[in-house]
């Protein structure tokens, strides 16, 4: 298998936009190609993540749509849909295609537009990532899924609402250092704890926002990447799935797909959790970050809440998590999120993250979770 590197990254500002998801992707892709210093004609394939285009934009066939709007209509394009992990799934398949020697340069990205519809509508569309026969008819929502996980974690490990709030406060503090973040304003523990319940025990400030945005990264084979100023190498990329139905998951305080994907990615890279310097992980809800830090092996099962409260995951802490602000503050345009996380880790490993730079970051990890925890992808990165 050939080595694969990320040689270019681009991200739009996340938040409210008056452009289509394809236009948002195209902006990010142009930025990524410029960053890579290659011409669009060098791109041999587009792997693309988009989730609710059919619902919010009445747009299916979003792969070629995005390629056409970008201006590279003739490359093979494929749209990936693994709920919120879509562009990370796209990324993993592009890595495999280059590693296998089929292509040398692949553009990976994703975009989402949801702020053009009401919160009630987007709440419904996001719930489509849960089972349509057994769960949606009960009125289960996306926050509801993580509320059930939070309650189970609190019951088993004594995790508190204040510990969850510490995650939100930390990620908003980081987001304030990121000019592309949707929220760039610090918040307090009191503000989180006093915000209204969305799905008990999760409150409004435990939840990431609905966001519009796009992200793109350029992947290249070693031969191409060697000509680039600062290639960031893909050390491993793994996916895992789990039961769709919450009733079929044996222990709601854990996300087995995170544990399996992480184990596979660490094995591919030949490193362990203690070798990782910076992490971008899927904090769609504050409890999701706590459970992910445990599943990735950064902390013992049950210790994630206390670690967040002690500040171990903040910039300057033991293991900085979500220096970009995470989904919580940076925003969560679901089709773009996986690619945006890769963009942040690449920026960190290049040492170009400015005020949110993790000092001397050599190895990074991205973790993206799909919807009801039935999909997880984990990738590992290293610099020369």
């Amino acid at each position: 298998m050939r080595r694969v590197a990320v040689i270019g990254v681009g991200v739009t500002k996340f938040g409210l936009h008056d452009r289509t998801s394809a236009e948002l992707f195209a902006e990010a892709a142009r930025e990524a190609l410029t960053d890579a210093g290659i011409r669009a004609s060098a791109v041999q394939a587009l792997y693309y993540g988009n989730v609710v285009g059919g619902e919010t934009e009445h747009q299916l066939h979003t792969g070629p749509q995005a390629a056409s709007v970008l201006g590279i209509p003739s490359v093979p394009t494929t749209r990936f849909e693994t709920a919120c992990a879509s562009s990370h799934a796209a990324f993993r398949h592009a890595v495999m295609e280059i590693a296998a020697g089929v292509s040398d340069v692949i553009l990976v990205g994703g975009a989402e537009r949801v702020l053009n519809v009401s919160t009630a509508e987007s709440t419904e569309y996001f719930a489509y990532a849960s089972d349509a026969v057994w769960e949606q008819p009960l009125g289960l929502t996306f926050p509801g899924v993580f509320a059930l996980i939070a309650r189970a974690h609190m019951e088993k490990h004594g995790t508190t609402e204040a510990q969850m709030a510490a995650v939100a406060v930390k990620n908003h503090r980081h987001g304030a250092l990121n000019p592309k973040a949707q929220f760039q304003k610090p918040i307090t523990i009191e503000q989180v704890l006093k915000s209204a319940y969305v799905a008990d025990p999760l409150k409004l400030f435990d939840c990431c926002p609905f966001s519009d945005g796009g992200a793109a990264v350029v992947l290249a084979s070693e031969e191409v990447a060697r000509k680039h100023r600062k290639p960031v190498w893909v050390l491993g990329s793994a996916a895992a799935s789990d039961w769709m139905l919450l009733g079929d998951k044996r222990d709601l305080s854990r996300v087995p797909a995170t544990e399996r994907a992480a184990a596979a990615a660490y094995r591919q890279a030949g490193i362990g959790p203690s070798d990782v310097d910076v992490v971008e992980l899927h904090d769609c809800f504050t409890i999701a970050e706590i459970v992910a830090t445990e599943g990735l092996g950064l902390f013992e099962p049950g210790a994630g809440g206390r670690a967040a409260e002690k500040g171990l995951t903040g910039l300057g802490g033991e293991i900085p998590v979500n220096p970009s602000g995470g989904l919580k503050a940076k925003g969560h345009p679901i089709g773009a999120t996986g690619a945006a996380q890769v963009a942040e880790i690449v920026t960190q490993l290049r040492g170009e993250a400015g005020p949110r730079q993790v000092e001397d970051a050599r190895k990074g990890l991205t973790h993206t979770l799909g919807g009801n925890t039935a999909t997880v992808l984990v990738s590992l990165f290293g610099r020369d």
Partner: protein
Amino acid sequence: MTEPTITARVFFEKARSGQLTAIRCGACGELAMPPKELCPSCHAHQWQPVTLVGDGTIASFTVIRVAPRAHAADVPYAVAVVRLKEGVSILGRIVDVPLDKLAVGLPVRFRPLIAKDLTASVGFGPA
């Protein structure tokens, strides 16, 4: 001999009449609910329907206050993962339990929820 698979339609027909139906694997004894084509434990396709007694306890719960459009009129409402006495778990609405009395471990009993169009969904009420 292969037993007919319990489809979702059959499950909800039985649910409407108050029966909670699981399936047991004839090869390894694994109990499953809702129905699956292959046994997740041994991958055999030898299911036998089993009627559960309907008693269980709350494994985790939430109170939904921001709902999808179709459920907006119901808020706040409780949704829980209920662990049945026989060992399988399923998601359901919790009804007739005051929201401040919800707790992990609370005993509940199966109660089908019948909509205006007569479709049933999984619910649980006080034991």
